Each structure stands twice: as structure tokens, then as C-alpha cells.
């Protein structure tokens, strides 16, 4: 099949950037979206032009490295998917596709479709951890966790940090990412010691990075490749509320 691709080209953060249009023939239906771009890049290299830069690693929808916006939707039109597992058989011959990078102040552009997502790393480092005793490995199941809680924690742990939530939020907010991290550890007994400080530190780091605020649009949940639920945002709000207003001091023991 034949495609018209309108792709954002930008040399580096200082370049202004522009759209470039490419016509691509011989797109096979079994190709993934990234393989289709590989074909385009091969053609560009043979013509002596700069190939289109995009992030990718596992190409199995589990690492969270790839991702850009296709016709206004992060990771494209298929639900619970990343661009590497988006297949050309879901497109039609003659489609016109506009490819843009994640656009957010907190994700500065590196080149073409690649943005710098280290803001997520800094938020994670601020509080997305637990303290554990080092030494020999503890016995399995030495800390019991109710099944429902373990499952909920794992659902939020599914977040791969791709940044689609920020990209598809009309406000450029990172609430789903931060909510997922806070909910993941908040459901587990191991996450309790740092729970109060985690909420304060991760929210503060998020705001410092310049992400937007939440309007409860829910488009983050709709485009999340892992289907992370906005329940995590409610958990984050509650933890933050409690941490900021009702934490510290004597918890009810003796004076």
C-alpha cells in the first residue's frame, strides 16, 4: 500500500522545526509502524538525506522507549498499544498520517520524533522507591499481602513510563504516571514507611518539571498502552492531601 507521511523534522532543541512530507510506496501490511519508518529511512539514506530519528528498543511493547503522536493520538489509533506493536494492516491504502513528537515543556525535543523524558526519571528518583534491608535474600512470602492488593499494585506497576499520558493530556500533565507510581507502592506493605514523604516529594518534583494540572479529561487512561487507570490519580490526590495536611506530630501515643 501507499502512504503519505507528514513528519516533524527538527535537528535539535535550538532548531525551529518544520513538517516534511514523504510519499512511501510498497508498505506491506505485516510491517509494524516502526518497520515502515525503517523502510522510509533506508530510502532517505540511499538518497543521501537525513533519516527520521525516533526512539525504539524492545519493539515488543514492554520497554516504553518508543512513542510519538499519529494523527493527533499518542501511539496511534489502536487501544492499549505502542507504536512498535502498531501494525500497518490497521491502516488503509492512501492514508495521510501526521507524525509529531510528544509535545510538552517538560519533554524537551532532542531530534525529530525523539524527546528527552528524563523528567520522569527525576520524579521517580524523588520518591518512587522503598527502603529495604540489604544482605541475604528474605524468605519468600515473609510479608503477606492480600491478593486484591497485590493485583492492584501490579496493575499500577505495569506503567512503562513511555510518556503517552503527558502527550495526550490537553494540559500536558503527568498525573497518570505519578499516580501509577504512588498507587503501585501505596498498595504494598513495603511501600508504607515512605508513603507520606513519597507523595510530597514526587508531586513536588512533578510540578517543578513544569507539567500541567489535571482537569480529569481521562484521555491519559484512554491512550495508555498498559491501560493504567485514573484510579491511581485519585490515590495520589488522597495521599498528597493526607501527607500535606494530616501528617507528622504525635500519632496518638503518649506526650
Amino acid at each position, binding site marked *: 500500500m501507499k502512504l503519505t507521511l507528514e513528519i516533524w523534522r527538527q535537528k535539535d532543541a535550538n532548531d525551529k522545526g518544520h513538517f516534511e512530507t514523504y510519499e512511501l510506496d510498497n508498505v506491506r501490511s505485516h510491517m509494524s509502524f516502526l518497520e515502515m519508518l525503517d523502510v522510509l529511512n533506508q530510502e532517505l539514506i540511499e538518497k543521501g538525506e537525513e533519516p527520521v530519528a525516533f526512539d525504539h528498543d524492545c519493539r515488543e511493547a514492554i520497554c516504553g522507549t518508543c512513542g510519538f503522536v499519529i494523527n493527533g*493520538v499518542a501511539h496511534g489509533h489502536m487501544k492499549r498499544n505502542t507504536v512498535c506493536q502498531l501494525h500497518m494492516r490497521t491502516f488503509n491504502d492512501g492514508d495521510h498520517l501526521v507524525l*509529531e513528537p510528544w509535545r510538552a515543556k517538560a519533554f524537551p525535543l532532542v531530534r525529530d520524533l525523539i524527546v528527552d523524558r528524563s523528567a520522569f526519571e527525576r520524579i521517580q528518583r524523588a520518591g518512587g522507591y522503598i527502603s529495604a534491608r540489604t544482605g541475604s535474600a528474605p524468605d519468600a512470602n515473609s510479608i503477606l499481602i492480600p491478593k486484591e492488593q497485590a493485583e492492584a499494585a501490579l496493575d499500577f506497576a505495569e506503567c512503562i513510563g513511555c510518556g503517552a499520558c503527558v502527550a495526550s493530556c490537553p494540559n500536558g500533565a503527568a498525573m497518570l504516571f505519578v499516580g501509577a507510581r504512588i498507587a503501585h507502592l501505596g498498595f504494598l506493605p513495603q511501600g508504607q514507611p515512605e508513603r507520606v514523604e513519597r507523595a510530597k516529594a514526587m508531586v513536588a518534583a512533578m510540578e517543578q518539571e513544569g507539567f500541567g494540572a489535571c482537569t480529569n479529561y481521562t*484521555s491519559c487512561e484512554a491512550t495508555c498502552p498498559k491501560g493504567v487507570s485514573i484510579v491511581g490519580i*485519585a490515590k495520589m490526590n488522597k495521599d498528597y*492531601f493526607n501527607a*500535606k495536611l494530616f501528617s507528622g506530630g504525635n500519632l496518638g501515643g503518649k506526650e
Partner: protein
Amino acid sequence: MDKAVGFYESTLGKKVVMAVTGIILFLYLVGHMLGNLQIFLDPAQIDKYAHMLHASAAFLWSVRLVLLFCLGVHILAAFQVWWRSRTARPVKYKVFNPPDVDYAAKTMVWSGPIIAAFITYHLLHLTVGMDSLHPDYVHLGAYNNVVAGFQQTPVAIAYIVALLLLAFHLYHGLWSLFQTMGWDHPKFGPWRRPLAVLLTAVIAAGFISVPVAVMTGVLQLVGG
């Protein structure tokens, strides 16, 4: 105090403040609507109600000041949150179709200012009774003030349109405040939106019934 200030500095804190003031304003709307519906009883009833509300200036003005304060804080927090989000995406998308964004959520940012303008107009029209807006206004003559006011068709239509907009604003606000306050649980989480639809429909129907009743002649002016 330090804690409260630190809390408000974050967008999460601002949203909680918006939610709490929103709840207070919503509760006031429920009372206001129930008060209005007395117009369908004996015409003297709502005038009596108006006199009752005005019996104590201290009570009247305390309620008014609380409402004005809530409204002011609600608007200030909304503006600050909106401004922050506006700056979070300096380079816009050429094509942007975020899925699942409903009409009510998308229009919060301008339904708010329009409702604020409507409240100003409504206060001048039926509370102050400005001559240029309502020539037949009689202080505390609530029944005839309302009927004469809505007998001007453009006025009645403006009220209905503004109230529909308020309904959209309420729908998004009512379900979304649960999320903002962290009130979620598998048992009631899925019911938050239907509950918001129900409450909004009741409020909107209650308010809109009055101008509609005047336009259709169900409510007529009374003499004396």
C-alpha cells in the same frame, strides 16, 4: 497555616480548594432551586419566603459573604490552574485528537467565565433590580419580579441558555471533584458519573422550569 499555604502551592492543592468551594456552591444551588420552586405554590408563598430570607441582615449578609468568598476562591484557583496548564505545552500539536475528552470537560474553561458573567447579570436583574434591566422591579416582590422579568422572551432564553451551560459545568465538576478529593473505590467509582448526571439533571430541570412556566403562561402576574 504553613501547611495550608504549602498545600495550596501545588496544582493538586488548588484543585482541592476548587472542589471544596465547588461543593459549597453546589449545596447553595440546591437550596436556591428548592426556594425557587415555591413559585409554583401560592403566589404569596415565595414573597413570604423572600421576606423571611431578609428578616435578619446579619444572616443574609453572612451567607452572601461566604458565597462570594467561595466564588472568588473558586475562580482564582481555576485561573491559576488554567494558566499553569497553558504554559505546559509551548509548541502545540498540528493535529490533536485526544480520545475520551467529553464536551463538558473541554468547555469548563469557558463555561466558567460565562457563568460568572451570568451571575453578575442575574444579581443585577433579580437581586438588585437595576432599573435599566428590570423596570418593574419591586423590592421583595419576588413573584411578580420573576414573572415580569421572564415575560421578556430574550431574558428568559438567556437564562435558559446560561442554565444549560451551568449544567455542563456542574456535571464535570460533580464527578471530577470525587477524583480530585481522592474519593474513589471499586464499589462506587463507576457510579460517580451517573450520579453527577442525575444531580445535574435535577438541578437544571428545577431552575429551568421557572422561565419555561412563565413563557408558556403557567405563571401569570398577580395584581396588588
